[in-house]
């Protein structure tokens, strides 16, 4: 993975020193809260319901054991012993003190981490495929480009005061695990006619109040032009994006209101002027960064893994875990191991400092020290010898990290909601925990198969409810928590936005409704259809009738 050189280190250290000064000036009253707010947001520090919240960037969801240990240490020393992994592959601490935040940032800088631009109207963390560098179906490691984008977008002088936040995602595979179609810019890596690497460029995807799927504005962008093209898009957005209404300020609205064709024309016109400027990437720099992402020294292994096969035969729990949490690796004899952070009855996506330390140790022992964070709020050990899976499983199980539910119904994506977040209208976590408790039984989960439930506590959709097979949105209805259900959303390469089922439900009704929807699906499914397949075949009507009764 990428290692900072002197320039990267200096940049982050300068930022820590700068923020320390800004905090001092705020604490002394020299800066008012109004002046300080944008500064603290540019360093990922929010003021939430109970305390501050610090969002640490985990660039493209990749970190090593040393960094994970530091995150554990910070949770222990400066917070309340846990952290929350987010739908943008970042980590949130819920209880930092403002006066200690410069120290926290200093600790992070020691291990090449920071909280720069994890908030504010600027370019945020560029996210990617959690299986990058390990997946069989990958064209090239997308993280090379994510790192290139990260540097270009960090403290960009022209794009730090955009109309609104800006999110970029990159996939290196046709199987989109990075939800690129619901990002402000989505980049799909592909090969050109001569086999050269390039990108399909999508613009204007996004969730929130007005969800949109991204529009393809360029079918093939050669790799050396990536930054100049991004700059053309950002400049166009910076100049014409709406600034009169916060809810119409994202680029998805700009593209919608301008028209995709006209927007494309503006971008291409701007790009023509800058494509051969200093932004054109020199091959040496691309190679320099690519060199950080060469695969680790995989051992030459056989594909068969006798210890694992034996254990699968004798231990159904282990077999389930392999079936759901383990993914095929591109190197023979290796496997990708998902670590579920969705235990039954506990807040999804959280990890204690002890669990983080354990994952760091396991990364060192099993996965070349490397860890990933997924946008579904789980962790990954990307390079595990398949024959060592039983060992790994036992260590994870002892720490509550081996729930065999990745991709299943209880692998819920869920925002912090009204339990933590000042923006929320309703709680989301208790809905998730109730659902996991109702569907705790492994056999039932297996029977249901792939199912993506996504829960948001407000219209901002940090829980991605628009792209859940079942999406749940919490609202405030006359002072009571109330939940709207949508069906048929998907964040993959076949992306679709969910459709509202009908009138909403109270908190204690939601679990029963989910149960009903699952039963209807199981009744109607044909062959090995997953929930989303059945839904797309039969439409919403049977589900609507089953839930509300025939019209």
């Amino acid at each position, binding site marked *: 993975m990428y290692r900072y050189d002197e320039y990267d280190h200096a940049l982050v250290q300068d930022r820590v020193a700068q923020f320390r000064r800004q905090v001092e000036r705020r*604490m002394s009253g020299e800066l008012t809260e109004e002046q300080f707010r944008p500064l603290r947001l540019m360093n990922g520090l929010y003021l939430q319901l109970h305390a501050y919240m610090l969002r640490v960037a985990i660039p493209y969801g990749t970190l090593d054991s040393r960094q994970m240990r530091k995150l554990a240490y910070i949770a222990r020393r400066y917070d309340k012993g846990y952290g929350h992994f987010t739908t943008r592959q970042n980590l949130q601490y819920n209880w930092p003190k403002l006066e200690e935040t410069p120290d926290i940032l200093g600790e992070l800088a020691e291990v090449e981490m920071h909280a720069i631009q994890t908030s504010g109207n600027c370019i945020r963390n560029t996210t990617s495929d959690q299986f990058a560098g390990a997946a069989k179906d990958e064209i090239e490691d997308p993280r090379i480009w994510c790192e290139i984008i990260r540097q270009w977008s960090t403290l960009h002088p022209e794009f730090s005061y955009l109309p609104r936040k800006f999110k970029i995602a990159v996939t290196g595979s046709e199987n989109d695990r990075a939800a690129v179609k619901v990002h402000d810019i989505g980049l799909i890596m592909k090969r050109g006619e001569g086999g050269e690497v390039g990108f399909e460029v999508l613009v204007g995807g996004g969730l929130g109040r007005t969800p949109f799927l991204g529009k393809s504005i360029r079918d093939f962008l050669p790799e050396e032009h990536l930054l100049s093209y991004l700059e053309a898009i950002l400049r166009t957005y910076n100049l014409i994006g709406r600034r009169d209404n916060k809810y119409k300020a994202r680029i998805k609205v700009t593209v919608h209101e301008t028209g995709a064709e006209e927007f494309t024309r503006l971008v291409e016109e701007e790009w023509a002027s800058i494509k051969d400027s200093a932004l054109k990437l020199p091959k040496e720099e691309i190679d320099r960064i690519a060199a950080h992402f060469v695969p680790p020294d995989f051992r030459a292994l056989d594909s068969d893994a006798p210890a694992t096969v034996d254990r699968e035969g004798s231990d159904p729990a282990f077999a389930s875990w392999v079936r759901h949490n383990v993914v095929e690796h591109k190197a023979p004899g290796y496997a990708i191991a998902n670590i579920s952070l969705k235990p039954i009855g506990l807040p999804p996506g959280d990890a204690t400092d002890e669990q983080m330390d354990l994952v760091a140790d396991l990364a060192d022992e099993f996965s070349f020290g490397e860890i990933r964070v997924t946008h579904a709020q789980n962790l990954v050990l990307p390079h595990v010898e398949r024959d060592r899976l039983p060992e790994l499983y036992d260590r994870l199980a002892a720490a509550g990290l081996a729930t065999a539910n990745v991709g299943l119904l209880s692998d819920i994506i869920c925002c912090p909601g009204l339990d933590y977040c000042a923006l929320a209208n309703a709680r989301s976590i208790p809905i998730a925990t109730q659902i996991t408790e109702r569907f705790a039984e492994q056999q039932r989960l297996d029977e249901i198969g792939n199912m993506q439930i996504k829960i948001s506590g407000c219209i901002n959709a940090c829980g991605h409810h628009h792209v859940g097979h079942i999406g749940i949105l919490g609202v405030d209805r006359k002072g009571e928590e109330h939940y709207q259900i949508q069906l048929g959303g998907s964040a993959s390469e076949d992306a679709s936005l969910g459709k509202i089922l009908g009138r909403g439900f109270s908190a204690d009704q939601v679990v029963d409704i989910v149960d009903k929807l699952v039963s209807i699906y199981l009744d109607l499914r044909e062959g090995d259809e997953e929930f989303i397949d059945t839904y797309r075949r039969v439409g919403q009507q049977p589900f609507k009738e089953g839930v509300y009764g025939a019209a």
Partner: protein
Amino acid sequence: MKQVVIASRLSDGLVVFLKQAGQAGAVEWALRLESAEVAENDARAAELLALAEADAVSTQIVVDPYLIDVEEQDGQLRPTKYREVIRCLGPTIRLDLGKQAEGSEA
């Protein structure tokens, strides 16, 4: 409707309540709702809020003060809106955290 002033402490973001508005507008802040000064009517509430806002500027101890409705239930003060109840207690899914935790400094 009874009201109290709620705010966030600048240094650590913890929820605080306006406790006492003494002479010359001197204001104290408390961590517990029980210690909050209760305004029995809108006029008093507006007074308290003005004092809180002035204090926020002059001492920089708190940010974002605002008024919330409270009522008495079983001899205890409780906000009427559940959002504010959550602010006064802590996360509902982690009873070991926030003000609700026994012995909590918050």
